[in-house]
């Protein structure tokens, strides 16, 4: 193990050294395992990265909708750290990529403003020795299941990286005057529409920026999540996640679906 990444714990390198001996761990189901083998990949090991991050506080104007840039930065940076550490573990195993990546945030009683960001997944390597690393020379990451990975490979696309963008937004409180001004009517409130619209678009643009850095042709399986975490109902994190993919062949080798009748049940 020549170039050991600097910030992995000692236990990690022992575990990874064992995996280099040929043993593998994976959280893939049996079906996923078979499908990944079918497209010519072999699981190397279960990899993870984590980061405990103090997300801090940020003053916000009571009556104004605005992006909380410090919190946005913190939420992004913390996930990025966890992902990078997971990539380091995968790199250490000589992996081509990581499939089935899950990104979680945990809060503990001991730290009110601190959160633990965890990324876990299964590192895989191509059996024919051809490198499938992405443009940046790193193992690709993706939140695709084994089934999705198989299907995607049949369409001539390969994953490049799990990409994300986030935007933490504060939604204005409404003053008494404003509330009374439109009391008794069901009307659109353009300021609120615009603020939330903007926040989501920002999260998605940032995700797309990441995908462009990878030279991807597109992002599949985009999810847009909204969470208030522990900030109360007026502060919302908009997180968009997806798998950046690049087209490697025009050939779609997916067989035509067959109609079936299930004899189960």
């Amino acid at each position, binding site marked *: 193990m020549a170039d050991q990444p600097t910030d992995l714990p000692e236990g990690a390198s022992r575990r990874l050294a064992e995996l280099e001996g040929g043993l593998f761990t994976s959280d893939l189901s049996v*079906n996923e395992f078979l499908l990944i083998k079918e497209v010519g990949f072999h699981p190397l090991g279960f990899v993870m990265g984590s980061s405990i991050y103090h997300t801090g506080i940020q003053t916000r104007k009571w009556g104004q909708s605005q992006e909380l840039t410090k919190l946005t930065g913190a939420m992004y940076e913390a996930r990025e750290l966890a992902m990078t550490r997971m990539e380091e573990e995968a790199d250490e195993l000589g992996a081509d990529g990581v499939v089935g990546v899950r990104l979680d945030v945990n809060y503990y009683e001991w730290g009110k403003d601190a959160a633990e960001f965890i990324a876990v997944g299964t590192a895989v390597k191509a059996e024919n020795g051809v490198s499938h690393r992405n443009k940046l020379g790193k193992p690709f990451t993706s939140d*695709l299941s084994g*089934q*999705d*990975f198989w*299907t*995607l490979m*049949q*369409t001539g696309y390969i994953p490049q990286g799990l990409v994300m963008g986030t935007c933490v937004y504060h*939604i204005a*409180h*409404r003053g008494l005057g404003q*509330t009374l001004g*439109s009391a*008794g*009517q*069901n*009307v*659109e*409130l353009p300021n*609120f*529409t*615009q603020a*939330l*619209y*903007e926040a*989501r*678009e*920002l999260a*998605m*643009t940032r*995700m*797309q*920026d990441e*995908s*462009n850095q990878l030279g*991807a*042709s*597109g*992002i*599949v*399986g*985009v*999810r*847009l999540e909204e969470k208030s975490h522990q900030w109360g*109902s*007026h502060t919302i994190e908009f997180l968009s996640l*997806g798998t950046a993919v690049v087209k490697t062949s025009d050939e*779609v080798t*997916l067989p*035509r*679906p*067959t*109609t*079936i*009748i*299930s*004899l*189960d049940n």
Partner: protein
Amino acid sequence: MDELPGDLPEAAGRRFAEGSFTSGLSVPDFAACLQMGLEPAGYVQGFCVMQWRWYGMGMSFGAFGPTGRANGQGYSEAWQCPHGYVSAEHRGWGQNYEQTWIEDAWREGFSSSYERMLEEARTLGAHGIVGVVDASSPLGDLGLLEFRVQGTAVRVIDGPPPIGDRPWTTYLAGQRLGKLIEAGYAPVSVAAAISSVRVWANCITEYLTEGSTTNWGQVAGAEIEQTAKAHMAVRRIARERVRAALGGDSLHGASLATTERELGQGDAELQCILRGNQVRRFKDFDPLAAPRPTVRLS
């Protein structure tokens, strides 16, 4: 992108100008789209935040006469007490009525969001939008309801530019959409309508919903006419509304979701949303291959 159409936020323009595609489709749906000759152009969305309150007028108790209706429009039916008994504690009049102001507001929230989504799709030069999802949810504790309509805009691979400025839309995606097209139908638009009916119980409805025989001589187990009629009306209104919007096309994959908020003994607010896909026949039906029986090993 020189200028942004209409009222889309600035970040939306930047997102679309970047050239790569985003797709909210799952990988199987994505693969099915490519197989059908559709390529994703981008994830498109529209939002609308509405100030929201459930009640209009018609809050009176109904002891001495029918409760007032908000605006005299839509379905309404009244029930009078058969007992000839007048008291502030006895609900002499009951009424079902359609809450047209709720329906109007929902329509505004839905269609504003929908139009904004179409606008995003037009910006991308899309032919249609697949996998549409719509929802509304309260925003914090502010008395606001946010409407959202989202989907994945698609272009026909090597197809001519879209005709007209309204991309087709459908709740379907993936193989379900493939099967529809195989069956000879083309998607036209999502179709959605809401209806909202308020039930103000009269004495009979109140006793019957208590489920007991009362000293007024009602028998437990009888049909509760007022509640039953409200349930029928709320579904009928939603269906008539969608039917009126179809203009001769067919509705595919309709789902009728009714929710009931109980507001008191026998008092309730019923809401019904009907969603479906407006489709049009464009070719004859090609019979599908005979299905092959299978057993899953899981």
